[in-house]
């Protein structure tokens, strides 16, 4: 019986949507009780939080760990350490590896590697179609039995609507969650930035933001047909929001996410062809960014994730069009998201609703809460502590962050997984 008592904490409760001081008792890896004051528990190990924020650990959907295939970019060990340092206690991994995770055998490899090396929970996703080629569905049942928590072809769209509708129908019969990328693929082909003045100034091929709504409209129609449970990986444009809202109001089982970079950066940040800002979908206009931030605050967009995508220097030090897309984000997810809090666009409980409770709910986890019975996956952080990010100090093997040199606020002081401390600031 190990008891840990967190006292003098600012408890961020994403379920009750409260932000108040109190204490939290943890026993045998689970939360036992919340207190408004600091109780005396004789046999408990006491941690004084110093008035800093204690919240459920972040659940990050869509993390790429480059195993199998490209372990030099990111391994389960490095990703796990980066996650712990970033206050992320559960990473939900993407299947867009080499080869794709599309059979129970590769999924078991991933689970074994994760178990051995990662200090945080790792929940794998599997591909929706074999090889992510969009032609034949994977063994959704077997993969689900083997532990796949969701099915996705990641940034590839299943363009063949017949294949996609059958996969959705089959997934529905197993109540499997399907995660989709909604950028209309033909209109998006070859695009490096969002179309508009900036794209034209830089002479880069752009895609209209309308491609996102077109893709969303198609998928909403398919959900009406099939009744599947569906999560959009990233909604990044204002024009897609009304369609999402209508679909939710009509009772479709649809939820939506957004990457933290699209909430905190816009297309102008690309500036003079800075490839660390090349993402998929590309960064949007400031108007789009603001609309999407509002949608998160309102709860229309359910989930914020890092869309952690490690890339080595070679794949980024290229002319913009040729450079690889994606940015690492596990360690910068929280301080980047806190920019919205500091800009007074969202409060902490609502921010953590999108970082913890909603993803937990989506995946059927009992984490993401500060309630008795929930696993003691916790993050202690100082939301105000300022620092300047130095990418060479990141624990990820890949250092492709757009926040290099950026002034940020919010430091993780400690991270606990099942009541065990996996990160201590200064470690």
């Amino acid at each position, binding site marked *: 019986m190990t008891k840990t008592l967190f006292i003098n904490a600012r408890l961020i409760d994403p379920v009750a949507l409260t932000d108040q001081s109190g204490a939290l008792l943890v026993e045998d890896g689970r939360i036992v009780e919340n207190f408004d004051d600091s109780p005396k528990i004789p046999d408990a190990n006491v941690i004084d939080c110093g008035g800093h924020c204690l919240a459920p650990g972040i659940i990050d959907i869509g993390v790429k760990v480059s195993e199998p295939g490209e372990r030099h970019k990111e391994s389960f060990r490095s990703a796990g350490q980066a996650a712990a340092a970033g206050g992320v206690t559960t990473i939900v991994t993407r299947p867009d590896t080499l080869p794709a995770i599309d059979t129970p055998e590769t999924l078991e490899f991933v689970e074994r590697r994760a178990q051995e090396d990662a200090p945080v929970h790792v929940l794998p996703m599997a591909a929706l179609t074999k090889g992510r080629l969009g032609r034949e569905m994977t063994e959704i049942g077997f993969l689900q039995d083997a532990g796949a928590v969701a099915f996705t072809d990641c940034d590839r769209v299943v363009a063949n609507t017949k294949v996609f509708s059958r996969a959705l129908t089959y997934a529905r019969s197993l109540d499997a969650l399907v995660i989709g990328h909604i950028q209309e693929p033909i209109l998006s082909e070859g695009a490096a930035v969002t179309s508009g*003045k900036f794209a034209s100034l830089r*002479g880069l091929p752009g895609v209209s933001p309308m491609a996102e709504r077109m893709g969303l409209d198609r998928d909403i129609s398919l959900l009406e047909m099939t009744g599947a449970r569906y999560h959009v990986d990233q909604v990044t444009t204002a024009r897609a929001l009304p369609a999402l809202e209508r679909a939710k109001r009509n009772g479709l089982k649809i939820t939506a996410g957004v990457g933290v970079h699209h909430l905190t950066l816009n297309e102008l940040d690309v500036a003079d062809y800075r490839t660390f800002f090349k993402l998929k979908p590309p960064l949007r206009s400031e108007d789009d960014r603001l609309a999407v931030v509002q949608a998160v605050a309102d709860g229309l967009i359910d989930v914020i994730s890092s869309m952690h995508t490690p890339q080595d220097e070679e794949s980024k030090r290229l*002319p913009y069009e040729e450079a690889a897309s994606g940015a690492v984000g596990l360690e910068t997810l929280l301080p980047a998201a806190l920019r919205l809090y500091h800009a007074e666009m969202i409060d902490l409980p609502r921010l953590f609703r999108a970082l913890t409770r909603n993803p937990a709910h989506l995946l059927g986890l009992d984490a993401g809460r500060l309630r008795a019975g929930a696993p003691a996956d916790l993050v202690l952080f100082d939301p105000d502590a300022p620092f300047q990010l130095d990418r060479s100090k990141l624990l990820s093997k890949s250092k492709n962050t757009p926040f290099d040199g950026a002034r940020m606020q919010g430091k993780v002081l400690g991270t606990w997984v099942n009541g065990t401390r996996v990160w201590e600031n200064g470690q």
Partner: protein
Amino acid sequence: MTFRANHLLGIEPLHPTEITTLLDLADSYADHNRKGIAHRDVLVGMTQINMFFENSTRTQASFEIAGKRLGADVMNMGMQASSIKKGETLIDTALTLNAMRPDLLVVRHPQSGAVDLLAQKVNCAVLNAGDGKHEHPTQALLDALTIRRAKGRLHRLSIAICGDISHSRVARSNIMLLGKMENRVRLIGPPTLMPSGISEFGVEVFEDMAAGLKDVDVVMMLRLQKERMDGGFIPSEREYFHRYGLDADKLSHAKPDAIVMHPGPMNRGVEIDGNIADDINRSVIQEQVEMGVAVRMAAMDLLAVNLRKKRGQEAIMA
């Protein structure tokens, strides 16, 4: 007289006074070229490397002649057949060349932004000879010099740029330069060949040639790439010529003394009628080529001055 830039990567970073300085110098080089006055001392002892990752005859020749007239040792590297094919990255190529200690690097590359990237990795002066759909600064400068010599000024003119704006780096650099010098710029072309967000560029956009050319002082035609003609962007070559090709009838809407320009190479009968191109009273196309050499001489001269200054300071610091 000020020219502070260390590279010529585009028109966008240039200040109007830098443009004027460069054009003034180019103007005198143009006169001297006509008189056969040599300036072989300006770049003496300097090495100029022309790196063309994309086919070019005229621009490369123009840079080569400009360098040689100023006394530089000029070397041409056809990059298409070289190590790029063997998988070497642009950065490695740049570092390799940099180790040979060139002074002036003239680069053309099919990717937008590639010349900027390269300039970050070398310690010599870099001249952008065209990067993707981004910029082609010396073309805009030679166009500006041609206009200035023909019209006597480079401000308060009405200038129409016609054709495939979307894929044209020449158009981008010209829009930027002519705007900086306070001219009215009109863009004319089918909407499929207009870049996105063009209404925010401070230009007027027309889809009809007659309306767009009305009372302009300068008509600038752009080349239509063969690969755009096959129904993807426009229905056909003949429909394009009918609606957007410059002929006497369409040109009659411009001012009577309007000049006609084309960056070359021309597709006669596609974007321009052969008779217009050859009309010595209207066409300044040959003069553009001539000014190209003068502008490139001026650009390399000014960059060499700044390079020597920078190296001198570094030597003192060391």
